[in-house]
Structures are given as structure tokens and as C-alpha cells.
């Protein structure tokens, strides 16, 4: 197939020869990350809001999220393999778990760190809980939540490279094949494009953060 019989040893030549594949796998990688992060944002913000109301739950939930982070990614992908089978689903599910901690923690901290006088003013003026959350708490916590989301994205772009082991595709395909075939160029291409993807996604989020603040 494509990667195998490359005679020219230079990295540039390798990239030129595999440009189609690079593009395809980068898009796959991107999709994996974006889907996982979007779902994680929804779950993470909801959990963060929940534990901001029920303070007793906060340590337990944050602890569980933290433990998930300590499990080696290779093992976690493997654990969900029997549950979701080979492919995209297992990849996304595992990545969601890795995203949770920064999103949940930053949502929780962002909300609980707001000056209590502001919240009391909102209560005192007769705003209901839903209004206070949507008009006061979330907008004020937003920069911190956004920072959490950016952390999650950058981290998960890296972890997603492992997802190719469970057949979820992505740039990890280059890396793992390169390792198994002693092809240093393949490993390099995988690593370089994973990093590039992380930088690009982070810059996009930075722009989104800036735009959403005005």
C-alpha cells in the first residue's frame, strides 16, 4: 500500500508521496477530537453546574475525573473495546472521559469563585435561578471555562493519536505503523501533524474566546 515501499529517505519526499493520506487522517483525527470535546463540554458543564449547587458532591466527582486521568490511555482504550467494539465509538468515548476533568473543574471553580455580593444582588433583585445561571454565573465564569476547554482540546489531540490502536483512525495510524516498520519518517509525520493540529485548534479556540467576550 501507500506507506510501505518508499525508497527516497527524506521526510519531505515522504510527506509529498503521502499527502492524500495525511490530509485524510488529519481530518479523521480532527473529527475524533471535535466530537469528543463537544460531547465532553455538554456533559462537563452540566456536571460542573450540578456540583456548584451540591457542594457535597464536588470532591467525589472531581476525584473520579482525576482518577480517570491517571489511567494510561492505552489501557483505557483497551478497556472499552469489548463495550463499543473496534472503531470510532470506542475512540470518542475514551476521549470524552479524558476531557471531563478540565471542563468540570473549571466550570465548578469559575462559578464558585464569583464574588458572592454579585450573586446576592442578583437574588435580591428577584432573578430566578435559571436567569442567574444563564445571565450572571455562566457569563462571568466563561473565561475560566474556556481555559478548561482549551486545555482539554490540546491534551486530547495528543491522546487521540493512541486511538488508532482501537481502529478509530487518525494520525496515530502513521505513528504506530512507523514504529512497527522502523519507518522514522512515518513516526515524524504523525507527530508533527498531531502537534500542528493541537496548535491550530488552540488558536481557533483562542479566537472564539476573544469573540465571545466582547
Amino acid at each position, binding site marked *: 500500500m501507500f506507506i510501505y515501499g518508499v525508497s527516497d529517505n527524506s521526510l519531505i519526499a515522504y510527506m509529498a508521496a503521502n499527502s492524500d493520506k495525511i490530509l485524510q487522517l488529519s481530518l479523521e483525527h480532527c473529527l475524533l477530537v471535535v466530537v469528543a470535546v463537544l460531547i465532553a463540554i455538554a456533559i462537563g458543564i452540566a456536571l460542573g453546574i450540578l456540583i456548584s449547587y451540591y457542594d457535597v458532591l464536588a470532591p467525589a466527582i472531581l476525584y473520579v475525573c482525576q482518577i480517570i486521568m491517571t489511567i494510561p490511555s492505552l489501557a483505557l482504550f483497551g478497556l472499552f473495546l469489548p463495550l463499543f467494539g473496534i472503531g470510532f465509538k470506542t475512540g470518542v468515548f475514551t476521549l470524552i472521559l479524558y476531557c471531563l476533568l478540565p471542563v468540570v473543574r473549571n466550570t465548578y471553580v469559575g462559578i464558585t469563585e464569583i464574588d458572592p*455580593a454579585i450573586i*446576592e444582588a442578583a437574588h*435580591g433583585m*428577584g432573578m430566578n435561578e435559571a436567569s442567574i445561571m444563564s445571565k*450572571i454565573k455562566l457569563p*462571568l465564569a466563561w473565561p475560566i471555562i474556556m481555559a478548561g476547554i482549551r486545555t482539554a482540546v490540546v491534551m486530547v489531540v495528543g491522546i487521540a493519536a493512541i486511538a488508532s490502536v482501537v481502529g478509530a483512525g487518525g494520525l496515530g495510524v502513521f505513528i504506530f505503523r512507523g514504529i512497527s516498520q522502523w519507518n522514522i519518517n512515518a513516526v515524524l509525520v504523525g507527530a508533527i501533524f498531531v502537534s500542528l493540529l493541537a496548535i491550530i485548534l488552540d488558536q481557533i479556540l483562542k479566537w472564539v474566546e476573544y469573540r465571545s467576550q466582547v
Partner: protein
Amino acid sequence: MIRLNGVTKIYKNNDTPAVNNLDLHITRGETCILVGPSGCGKTTTMKMINRLVTPTRGSILINGQDNQKMNPVELRQNIGYVIQEIGLFPHMTIADNVATVPREKKWPEKKIQNRVDELLHLVGLDPAEYRNRKPASLSGGQRQRVGVARALAADPDILLMDEPFGAVDPITRTHLQNQFIRLQEELKKTVVFVTHDIDEAIKMGDTIAVMRAGHLVQLDTPDQLLSEPKNDFVSALIGGNRAIKRLNLVKTREVIDSKPIQTLKPDSPVDTARELLITSQLPAVPVVDDNNRLIGVVHKHVLSALKDQADIADVLETDGCVVDTGATLGDALSTMLNYGERYVIIVDENYSPCGIISFTYLLELMKNDAA
């Protein structure tokens, strides 16, 4: 309007009640000041009215209705709430801050925007300039005025104010107080006002409730409180200089003559000015522009040294000793002392001079009081 019956509040993990068996009746249109040292329960009392704090015992009736049986959100939307400047929402524009309660009440957007403009005008902020600014770009005094505008947005009958002018400098505070007094004369809200500053209480209040350790010590008009403090605690709170404090009970507009005062124009002849000073027996004469707005004063000693051909405009002092008609005689006195003058010019809302109060007059007043 507001009636507290045997209200007691005991906070968790605390044996002594923050508020202890308090009875208080606040009538419609009255400004009631809760005053006392910190920890006396004044803020807790106020917060029980709009249910930010739930009383342990007793009941609070608002227009005859028990507030514990009312929907807290609706109750609060119909009670204006002003706290120290920190209570503005920092991420919202001034207009959005003021529009908070009308939006919660789901007014039509057009009506809300008109109301915002109206209120900003009312508190003396130009809507065109301030509407779209964030609270951080305003001065402390301006933020406080936005706070008042926000509380008035849905035209509530009751206004709760928790040390609203506590975080601003003394000059701005006096200004805000006078503005609020003027506003209140027009709006006639029922106001519950918390402060630890007895001078502010005397100046702003129709009635003053002095509190100590959760108890109501004395409930009286400022006049009675000054003349008959119930016990040593109240006397100590009022402090010395009672004659000076009484000056805060009288507004400048109550003592000035109704007939217009004589003024000069920048191009008036020096002769006229001299004549005026001699006949009026005053140390200075106000100078006004064509719209009768005060632009400065001319002092007697300057004028006497002046040549006949000189221009009034040249000897005009623009940084004058001025207070408005809403100020008290106490404000007038401290302004005189600040400027080191023996007079103060009183201006109306158009900044037209409408009277002069002299130091001698204030001395006479204090002497009679003391006697």
C-alpha cells in the same frame, strides 16, 4: 406598609440572636434608617424584608401580607435593592444592568429601552454617553447612581438600601445623598436604609431606628433623637457637637429668601458691583452668564482694590463656595470650612444662584439651638 412583628433571627452555629424580637413599623412614603454599630443586626433586618434571610421567629407584613407566604422571586422584583457599588454586574453594560428587573418581568424591549434612558436621566447620567459602557469604566459615584437607577427600574414601591453610599469619598457621598433626597421628595418611595453613619442617618431619615445587638434601642425622628436620646448608647452614637449635627436637619432651601438675589454679569461695570456689595452687606457677589447660570464670584476685598475701568471678568473666581438647594445647613457649613470662606452660595437645579448663607447666620442658629 412594612410591619415587623416580633422578628427574631438566629444564625446557624450561633447562640446569640442576630436580631432579637424586633417590632418595627414603616409607613408608606417614609425613609426609615436602620443605624447602629456593625453586627447590630441592621443588615439582617433589611434582608429579611426581601427574604434574602429567613426569620427564625416572627412575621413581616408587606401591605398587610405575610412575606413568607409570597413567591420570593415576585416579592423581590417589586422591591428595589441597592447595595454597595460591587453589586453591579461587571460583564453587562450600564443599560443591561438597569434593565435587569424589567427583563425578568418580560417587559417589551422598546419599553425597557425607554425606561433605561429615563432612569439614567433621572440619576443624572447622560444615556448617550453611559448606556453602552461597562461598570469598570465608571467612577465610584457614577456606579452608585447606576445602582439606584437599577433598583428603581420596575418602579417598585419599596426600596431597600444597604450602605449605598459607603464606598465613595466624602464629597461624592454628600452629592449622592443630596441627589437622593431630591429624588425621594419626587418619588415618595418607602425606603429602608441601612448605615452605620449617624450623620447620614440624621440627614436622610424621616425616622431613625437605632439598633444594638439585635435590639431596637430607639425609634424616633432625627429631631427627637438629637434632643432626647433614650440612653447613653444613643448619646454616644450621636456623639458630641449636637448643635452642629442639628444643622443637618434643615435644608438650605428652607432658609433662603424667596426673592431673587442680585447678581453681576461678567461685563457689568465695576461701579455697580461696588454699590451692590455695600447695599447687600455681603462678602461676595455671584456672577452669572446670559442663562443665569453661576460662573463665579467676585470678592469684596478684590473689588475695593480694583480700578474703575477694569473688567469684572478679570477678577472673577470660578472655583466658588457653592452648594445646592437640596444640601443641608451642615453641608453648607462644611463647604465654608473647606473653602475657608464666610459665606456659601446656594444654587438651584439649573445652577442659577438663588441665595447666600453667611457664617454669622449659622452661628446665630447654633447659638439659639444650644440655648
